[in-house]
Every structure is written in structure tokens, then in C-alpha cells.
């Protein structure tokens, strides 16, 4: 009704002492704890079927998750593909990504890799070849292979961790980089550890509950 309702006005009401941060975590009003974004690799084993890549990429854009790269490729099983995503998000965001991915029906399993996981990327770098000797010296430095050369250009293939590729691109910069094309990171877990295997959703859900509990309201 136009007049509204009766009752104590807002300023007459008791107010609770606590607060939550942006991520919905209860905080000590004194120590404002927020999670900083971190870079991590998430590997997903998916059904190799049409639409699964768009399901996954659509999920990232729709939910505004920050991704650095997304790669997809076949596995030893023809019916399966592996998607490797590099993301940069705070912990709760990374957790959401994993859970939202698991929710997609064609997704079989999802895992966040350890920081020491094997991560590789391939880049093609086309540079001006005015000074072939110098260019080749740089190429040697980064174990680059020559893929193509013309009187004016040389194109190298470099494989390695992202940092190495970035360093190479920077060093090649002195000759003039004409074009580059990068694949984005692909990754596997080390040793006998499985990357993202066909583990059951129940297990993964339990694994999740455990991680959930590990978030302290404030890191100590």
C-alpha cells in the first residue's frame, strides 16, 4: 500500500557484528581477507562428440571466468577428448570452474593439475631474416627448429613452458617479429599420477567437499 507497513525503522533495529567478503566468506571485520587470483591448469576428459567444445567454451564466457588458453585434442580412446584450460582466478573461482565443468553432461572428469605438472606450448614465430646468423643464434638458444625460410623471413617452431616461449618471442623481437601463432598450453600430470581420468562423479564430489572445507576464512 502507499503508506507502507508499521514497525521499527531500520535505524532502530539491532545490527549484527559480522560481515562477509565479496566471495560470500564470513570475515573478521578487522582482517579483510580476499583471495588473490592465481594461474592454474585444469584438465578435463570429455566425450568426443559434437558440441562439447562449444559447451565448454560457452560456459567460460557465460560465467565470466578468466581463461588464458583452451586446447582440445584426442586421447588414446577414440571416444574421448582432453581439454586443457589455463585459468586465472581466485580460489573460489577455480573451484566454481571445476564444479561447473563437471556439471556438463558430456564431461567425464575434471582435475586441477599440480603446479609441477608438465606444461607445454608450441609456437610458430616468423621473423625478419635480415641477419640470418644472429637469428639462428637466438633460435639455438631456445632449441627452436627452423620450419621455413625465405630470403626475407625465417619461421621457427618452439616448444616449451609458457615462460620460455614468452622469453623467445621477446628475444626474437630485436629482429622484428612478423607473425606468431601459439597453441596454448597442454599438460599432463607427472609420473604415475593420472591427469583427469574416468573417476566417478561421487568421488569427485567428495573430493570437492574436502577442498571446500579447506578454505579458511582468513589465511593464517
Amino acid at each position: 500500500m502507499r503508506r507502507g507497513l508499521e514497525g521499527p525503522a531500520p535505524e532502530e533495529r539491532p545490527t549484527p557484528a559480522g560481515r562477509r567478503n565479496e566471495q560470500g566468506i564470513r570475515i573478521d571485520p578487522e582482517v579483510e581477507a580476499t583471495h588473490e587470483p592465481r594461474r592454474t591448469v585444469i584438465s578435463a576428459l570429455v566425450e568426443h562428440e559434437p558440441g562439447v567444445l562449444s559447451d565448454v567454451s560457452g560456459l567460460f564466457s557465460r560465467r565470466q571466468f578468466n581463461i588464458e588458453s583452451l586446447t582440445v585434442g584426442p586421447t588414446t580412446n577414440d571416444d574421448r577428448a582432453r581439454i586443457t584450460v589455463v585459468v586465472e582466478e581466485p580460489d573460489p573461482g577455480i573451484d566454481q570452474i571445476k564444479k561447473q565443468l563437471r556439471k556438463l553432461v558430456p564431461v567425464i572428469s575434471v582435475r586441477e593439475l599440480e603446479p609441477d605438472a608438465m606444461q607445454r606450448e608450441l609456437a610458430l614465430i616468423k621473423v625478419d631474416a635480415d641477419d640470418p646468423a644472429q637469428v639462428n643464434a637466438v633460435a639455438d638458444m631456445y632449441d627452436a627448429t627452423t620450419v621455413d625460410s625465405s630470403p626475407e623471413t625465417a619461421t621457427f617452431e618452439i616448444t616449451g613452458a609458457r615462460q620460455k616461449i614468452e622469453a623467445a618471442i621477446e628475444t626474437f623481437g630485436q629482429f622484428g617479429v612478423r607473425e606468431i601463432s601459439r597453441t596454448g598450453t597442454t599438460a599432463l600430470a607427472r609420473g604415475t599420477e593420472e591427469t583427469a581420468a574416468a573417476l566417478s562423479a561421487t568421488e569427485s564430489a567428495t573430493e570437492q567437499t574436502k577442498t571446500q572445507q579447506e578454505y579458511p576464512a582468513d589465511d593464517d
Partner: protein
Amino acid sequence: MSERAAKVTPADTDEQHDEQITDSAAPDAAQEVDGDADADGESEPTPVTTGAESVVRALENAGVEYAFGVQGGAIMPVYDALYDSEIYHVTMAHEQGASHAADAYGVVSGEPGVCLATSGPGATNLVTGIADADMDSDPMIALTGQVPTAFVGNDAFQETDTTGVTTPVTKDNTFASDPDRVGTDVSEAFALAREGRPGPTLVDLPKDVTKSETDREPDEPTVPDTYEVQERADEEIVEAAAERIETSERPAMLLGGGVIKGEASEACREFAIEHEIPVITTMPGIGSFPEDHELSMEMAGMHGTGYANMAITHCDTMIAVGTRFDDRLTGGIETFAPDAEIIHVDIDPAEISKNIHADYPLIGDAETVVQQLQEAIENSPQAKKWRAQCQQWKSDYSMAYDAPEDEPLQPQFVVEALDEATDDDTIVTTGVGQHQMWACQYWTYTEPRTWVSSHGLGTMGYGLPAAIGARLAADDDQDVVCFDGDGSFLMTLQELSVAVRENLDITVAVLNNEYIGMVRQWQDAFFEGRHSASDYGWMPEFDKLAEAFGAAGFRIDDYDEVADTIDEALAYDGPSVIDVHIDPQANVYPMVPSGGDNGQFALTEDQL
């Protein structure tokens, strides 16, 4: 008709089928018992001969009784197969109506509602209702016609990338590419719509696939292997949560739509009553706990009761079941239940700590987990003082409203009058706006599956088609009442033709303020009363409009007409519309502005 699609002869795909037939254990039941069936003289289903027949067979196997839709070129083979089926098809006036009717059918019955549409505009018209079902986790299956496979990607007549368009608003969708599998695709979609956290699924059906010959019976409706649902929560966390509840001084339960979908209302009720814990609901959670119970604090959130918002703000332990902590519920995150440790029960792991951090994440089926908690608790919390506080808030922030006889009719009075004139099991559907909020606030809900509304998407026009779907899912002796706004009603009122044709006994009360009322209220509060595009200033006479459709039309202007007119409309056996002219300036309170502090809800405009 220039449907190029209709003229296309399906590519001969037989060879392909033969290859794709696998020896999977398809329960070709109908085929196996075929011989005996004739001998018994029983009407065993005839074996399927086409993709379309296997689609319909899949629906029959799943126990589908009703389907809502509109015909069209690309879906014609499916309709042709429906012609011989026991499934009753309700032709709607608009595909949006079909999707809302199917959605409401799913809400009331708990089984996926079925809607059908042709390709292109038929499919895109369904999208609003699909998105609505997705936001509210309502079980629903949409079957859309598609241009023949050979034309897909060529911008053929009435071609839309339906799976592409609906990916973000479905739980899962499939483009059916194989006549031998199309029935199973539908079975699987049906199972997926219902299992775990329910939601809408869609199967896109190219015309050549449904027209093609096949004798493959669909598999039983089961979810794909990759879809697993956790039933029971981690026992350790259950124990820890139970301990927390036992020692809590200010416990509260927050029941969401998941309680109703998970059939956990009974378990939650027992839990709350045994341990004397005050109960708050979300909007979709309305009906999960009887609002006439002493422990009920009713709905919290933007237009929740003051006492619910006080309880939510001051509790120290929240047992939240089947809720996704939508922003209309939480208000500003910083001030949401800031003293509370949260026990979050949800079947969808992705809802845990999405918006509000869960201190005790309990993933599993709502009923199972609440029973787990019940078993783990040894002593009820000692919360006498808190309960007294909650009762105090109920009287401090009473929802009592002013309704002077000499002033225009107040909408709350109309809602209460209809509630009084009907039984407790009456189903209420609504449009979106002020009238929807009054229907939440002033109707006393006591049973699950009696509140049918568009919560997450907030779709104006939901009310009437939802009443149609609800009517067909409800028991014959249940009343179905739709509260609509004048604006919302105008969006889908053509569905009145369906209600009349099918002789559906529903009562529509249009709370007519000749305004886009909720917008007008916000403009008054936040835009200096500048009524940009919110003042209709003129509305058709809805009672006469109803009569033109063949429904019964009534009109109310004053308090003294309310009771009698309502009785007459309810007594009418068929659809009736009451055009209720309410105070155009009536506003919805309490109100927590977007992102505001729940505890600081406004009771009047100057408190905003």
C-alpha cells in the same frame, strides 16, 4: 505454404543405420512380446516403424500423459506419430505458452512436462519458457523440429541453430542425428530432466531423422553414464554440522525450491518441529513449510517479511536446504546472515559456495541429507530466547495493512479473500510484478507444489499458461487460481482460447492497476517519480475480453463486491477472469533494495 523443408526427400541413410545398430541391450520389449500380445488380445504397443514413432514411444514409456505444443513443418512427422498415441496433446496459442504450461505441469506433478514446437520461430518461441525452467530447475523436455540434416547449416527455411541457442538455458540438449537412436535420445533427455537437480532438456529433431524408417524401440529412460548424482552427504561433515546445530543459540532453517523438488518437505517439517527451529523459505521454497505454523517466518528476501529478514540476518547457524542463494534472497552479500555458519545442503555441487560460502557443505539429495542430519543430532539446540525473539519480530513487523473503506481497493485484501474462499490445496500461479509479491505475502501456503511462479527469470506472462499446465497436473478437486498483473496478462492472454477450448477450470484474478506497477513503484522510489513507459493509462476491459474468448468475465471495483464475485467466479465450471481494479498507487513492502542489507528492509518509501 512454401515450406521448402517439407518437400525434401530424406537422404537415403539406411546403410548408415545398419552400421550403427549396436548389440547394446536395448529392451526391445514390444518386439519380443509381440507374438503373445495378439494371442492375449491385449493392446500391446505396435512396433515402431519410424524415428518419429520411436520419439513418441519414448514419451509413452516414460509415462507421459500430456504434451503442449504448436504444429509446424519440421515437427509434422512427430505430430503424425502422436495422432495414434494415448498422449493428450494440448495445442497452445503460442509456443511460449507451451513451454510455460509444460514447466508448470512439471512443477505440480514432479514429472517432466513436455512441449513441442517446429523449427525456427517455433523453437525460438519456446526459449523464454525453457530459460524460465532452467532458472527454476523445473523438469521439462522440449522437442523441436529441425530442417532435414542435409540442409542444416545452409540457412534453410525456418532453420535456427536450436541446440546452439538453447545451450546456455538447458540442463542438456541433443541434436538427434540417427533414426535408430532418436527414441533413446528422447528417453535419455527425459531421464536427465528429472534426475538429480531437475531442469529442462531439449532434443532437436531433424525432419529426415523422424521420417526415416527404423524398428528400434527406444531404450528405457536412464541418464548417461557420465551423469552421476550423489545421494548421501559425507558422514564426517554431517556429524560436524549436527554438532554445530546442537550448540547453536540462534538456529534457522532456510528452505529453497530444492526441498520441494527433492520431496523433502516432510523431512524438513519434522526436523524443524522436533528441534523447534524457526523456518524461513525462499520464494521457490514457498509451500515447503506450512506458513500457518508457529515456527514459520515465511519468505525472506527483497519483498520477504520483515521477520524473515530479521531472522535471516541474526541467526548464528543456518541450515540452508536446496537454495542457490539468489541475489534477490541475499541482498548484499556482505550483510547476508553475517553471523551465521552456513550448513548448505544441495544436490548440485556447483551451488556449494557459489554465492555464499558453505561452512558445512553437504552434497546430496535433500531428503536423504536432512534425514542424515536428523540421525546425527542427539540434542536439540537450546534456543528458547531466540524463538521468543522471532515471535517478537513477527508481531513487530506484522504484515497487517491499512484498507480504509473510502479509499481504492487494496490488492492484499483481494489475495486474502481468494485464499479464504478456496481450500488449502489450491494452486496459485502468477505473472511477474507487484501482484506476484502480494500473492507471496498475503496467501497462506501450507502444501508443497501449490505455488507456481516464475522466480529466477521473472517472466511476465507466465501466469495464464502456467495455470493451464497446472490444471492438467492437479487433482480434479484442486482449485487453480492465477494472480496476474494487467501487463503480465496482456503478454500471454491468447492462451485463454486454450483454456476455453479445453474447458479448464481456472480462475484468473487480474490485479489491474493500469500500470507496469512494479516499475512504477521503482520509479517513485529511485527515479524521482518519472513514470517513463510505465503508465498504460488505458487497458482493455478484461472481463469483456474474457467473454469474447468464451470464458466467464467479472469485474470488481469495490470492497463490497469482492466476496460475492470471487464466489461466483470460483463456482463457474470453466475458465473465468476477474478484472480487479485495485489502487493504482499501491506499493509492495517490505522492500530490500537491490544489493541492500536484508536487516535494513524498508517498511515505507522514505526508508529506502
